[in-house]
């Protein structure tokens, strides 16, 4: 279970980052490797969360209908021009077909 203090810390960190330049416009902008790391991190985090969710939903790699969902999600993203809804709907549809076929 997530404790309330974790929520408060996440809220404070998130707000401070959002307010940084709006409240202190003179701050130095991120640059170089640090800027590239910040640019890459959200994508890396989302892909890591997705990969582990598909490949190892219980913490260790296993062959599950989740792998079909991953393929369906990639297909959905491709044919709906990277639409979030398209990725989810087609991925979920493929997952359900795989789940029904696998009994």
């Amino acid at each position, binding site marked *: *279970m*997530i404790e309330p203090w*974790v*929520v*408060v*810390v*996440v*809220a404070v*960190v*998130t*707000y*401070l*980052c*959002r*307010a*940084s*330049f*709006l*409240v202190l416009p003179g*701050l130095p*902008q*991120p640059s170089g*490797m640090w*800027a*590239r*790391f*910040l*640019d*890459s*991190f*959200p*994508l*890396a*985090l*989302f*892909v*890591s*969360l*997705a*990969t*582990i*969710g*598909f*490949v*190892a939903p219980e*913490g260790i*790699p296993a062959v599950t209908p*989740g792998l079909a*969902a991953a393929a369906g*999600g990639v297909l959905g*993203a491709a044919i709906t021009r*990277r*639409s*979030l*809804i398209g*990725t*989810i709907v087609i*991925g*979920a549809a493929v*997952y359900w077909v795989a789940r029904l076929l696998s009994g």
Partner: protein
Amino acid sequence: MIRRPAFRRGLAEGAPVLLVVLPFGVAFGVLAVGVMPGWLAMVTSLLVVSGAAQFAMVGLAAAGPEAILVAATGLALRHVPMSATLSGLIGQQPLPVRAGLAWVLVDESFGLTVDASRRGIDDLVGYKAAIDLQLYTAWMAGTAIGVFVGPVIDPVALGIEVLFPLLFLGLAVPLLRTRRHWVAAGSAVVFAILATLVLPEAWQVTAAAVLAALVGALIGD
């Protein structure tokens, strides 16, 4: 504020975003009640106002607070360049206005406001305030609906657990814009699979994400 033309324009142009935000608020509420009390899920949406961070929190709940804080900090830091850009766009404004605009500085409102600036809308404060108001209302309403219906839904029977990785896949795909992003994404897949083989569950996502972002940082623009 509501009589300002830019505010009304923001209301009109932000309305389609609600169709996306509301269902995801519902999804957050449904999933959140599995890892926190309903009231805390509401407080989370009230205070954090970040779909990415909030879904990451739920996804990493089993990994513990350290993993959540690392992930949330990494996600929050992406708002720093957005804050710098928005600060330049709105120009001289009173501190309370600037602090208020930061509250709902999310991807959607940022994107719409930058686009409005390019289209020559002068009153970006009024425009963004309208977007923010709608987003915040939809996010809170969605969360409340999700918290209400969450306890009567069986996530495994409905296959809801697969929506989680699909959501993150859907969030990742639009971010693939440059060679660096493709390299970082490919690295994240490899590191994530390796992490499941060699690391405890609590550190798998965080380690994979940090290492992949470091690989991405080594790739020039």
